[in-house]
């Protein structure tokens, strides 16, 4: 009896290791391949001789890309959108979530519903686009001609993140707040001196959610930003890919590296910053998922 037990467990264990190893390799391999292909010579890439390590190593693709002003523009635009976008969204979310976490707030249920309803029903792309066009007109009338600000302020707010923050704030014991009130603290002081320090890790997680979605944002940035020098990196990558897929544009390709290498080099450059900070932020992400339970 005992031995049979061990065999079934052993088999399961072996399957687990096997499956996870294959899965982990499949997750890592495309990035390794991208790095190798971006540094390999033309014939090696075009005839798919690159499997794991670079062949006929060249750095021309990177050099050409680094000498492209639009690439650096795209990079700085992405940094701009990520920084100000996260700051704006987090600020709005913190204030709103704090107010919503207070039981004494009038019409609290109504405000909550106002948020949650946007998770149930969204207007869709076309009405959103038309609405952004209106916003753009208003922004331009006020004198903000830079479409980046439109993307920062109008896009990327998520009800889910506010609810995460609200739940965290609700978990803070009310005695601490009462003590602060006795000491004469105003709402803003209570928020900044009590709640924010006590919910640091949740706030970090939510900030990360906002940041990643800003860094990765593509669709609306492409739709709303018309000036080529204001485009973020994701849009830049996509346009390069479309250019590359156009046979007419690629007909006269006579460089020493394959046209694919440019695309792979772009992928590598856009992924590297995330890979660098990934080990530090990974634990917050794991945390965020587990906080995801929504209640009302």
């Amino acid at each position, binding site marked *: 009896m005992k031995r049979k037990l061990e065999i079934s467990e052993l088999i399961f264990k072996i399957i687990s290791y096997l499956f996870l190893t294959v899965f982990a390799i499949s997750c890592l391999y495309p990035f390794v391949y991208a790095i190798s292909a971006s540094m390999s010579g033309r014939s090696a890439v075009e005839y*798919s001789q690159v*499997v794991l390590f670079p062949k006929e190593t060249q750095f021309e693709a990177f050099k050409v890309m680094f000498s492209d002003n639009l690439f650096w523009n795209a990079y700085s635009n992405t940094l701009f959108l990520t920084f100000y976008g996260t700051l704006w969204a987090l600020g709005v979310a913190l204030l709103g979530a704090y107010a919503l976490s207070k039981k004494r707030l009038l019409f609290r249920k109504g405000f909550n519903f106002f948020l949650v309803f*946007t998770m149930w029903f969204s207007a869709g792309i076309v009405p959103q686009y*038309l609405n952004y066009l209106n916003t753009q007109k208003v922004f331009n009338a006020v004198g903000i001609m830079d479409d980046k600000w439109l993307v920062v302020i109008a896009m990327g707010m998520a009800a889910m993140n506010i609810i995460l923050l609200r739940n965290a704030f609700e978990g803070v014991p009310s005695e601490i707040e009462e003590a602060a009130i006795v000491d004469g603290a105003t709402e803003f002081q209570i928020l900044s001196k009590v709640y924010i320090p006590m919910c640091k890790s949740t706030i970090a997680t939510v900030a990360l959610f906002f940041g990643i979605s800003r860094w990765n944002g593509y669709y609306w940035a492409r739709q709303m930003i018309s000036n080529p020098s204001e485009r973020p990196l994701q849009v830049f990558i996509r346009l390069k890919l479309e250019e590359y897929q156009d046979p007419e544009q690629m007909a006269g390709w006579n460089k020493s590296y394959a046209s694919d290498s440019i695309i792979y080099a772009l992928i590598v450059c856009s992924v590297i910053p995330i890979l660098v900070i990934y080990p530090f932020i990974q634990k917050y992400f794991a945390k965020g998922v587990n906080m995801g339970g929504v209640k009302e």
Partner: protein
Amino acid sequence: MKKQLASDYLIYDEASGIYKEDAEQAVRDDVEKHQWLNVVGIIARDWRLYIMLVPMLLVFLFWRYFPMYELLGCFKVQDEVKTVANQFYLGFSNFKLLLSGSTTLSMDFWRAMRNTFLLSFYGLCFGFPMPIIVALFFNEIRSNIARSVYQVLTYLPKFMSTVVMTTLVTMLVKQGSLTTSMGILSQLFVKLGLISAEVGNAGLLNAPNFFRAIYQISGIWEGAGYDSIVFFAAIIAISPTSYEAAQIDGAGKMAQMRYVVLPSILSTIVIMLISRIGSLLNVGYEKVLLLYNQNTYVTADVVSTFAQRYAFDGGLKGLASAAEMMNNVVGMLLVISANTIARKASNVSLY
């Protein structure tokens, strides 16, 4: 008697023969009379709290609720100059046009509806169980270091943007030509006998038959590791004594799964399932948009991409809004019903 006339709050008590004050009525009337004064008073006393709400409310009003107002354009005559409020009322003719089933446009719409449903449904069938299985496998790995390595690697694709992910997919299954060979993943598939060399050479993304598979597999590749976190957290919360008890009773690995693990993580599964069903019609349009092309509209075109193509390329904004309206209303009904059923059946609810 005089006193009774002066006040409505005194009632004559027959038994004792004296006037009594009706305290409850007094309070009720007082509240009624001063209700709105009270609201103003409460808000004035706590004005800082309400000021904090304002930015959030404005953001949601302007960029979540105004689009819903804009959506009403689907009932109106399309007009480039007038705003939605001033456009002429048209009624349901946009909807009739879409649903009629006889025109090309209507057939495109039905195709998009079908694709939307199928992509989500396959996602539910194949994409949903995967993270649970991965979590079960993670649980088998006792060494913390090894497990961390596996976790870090399998979460990785989730951090890539949709653009980077789709670009990678596009490159890995790209078409071949006389001077270049096909993408490395296509080559692998040809070697394994999954696809023919012709299909590989024509580009896997140009083959309508493979779009759904590519969509689902890339989705699993992207999310299975990361989405397993929730289930894994539920599994490691199971007390080791439960396993021991089952082992003493002679339960093998499968029996332990069936009688120990599954019941313990059932509520987590239900919650995740509800949220999944809730977003059943919210297909990631960005991903479809980045992966599909004219050759694969047959299987790839979903309502969002249909709508944005007709609106931005064809100029039919009213029709496109009508299409999205239908999609989103059905989606909302799904969320609400999934939630209600779950609440009734298991006392677990999401909202």
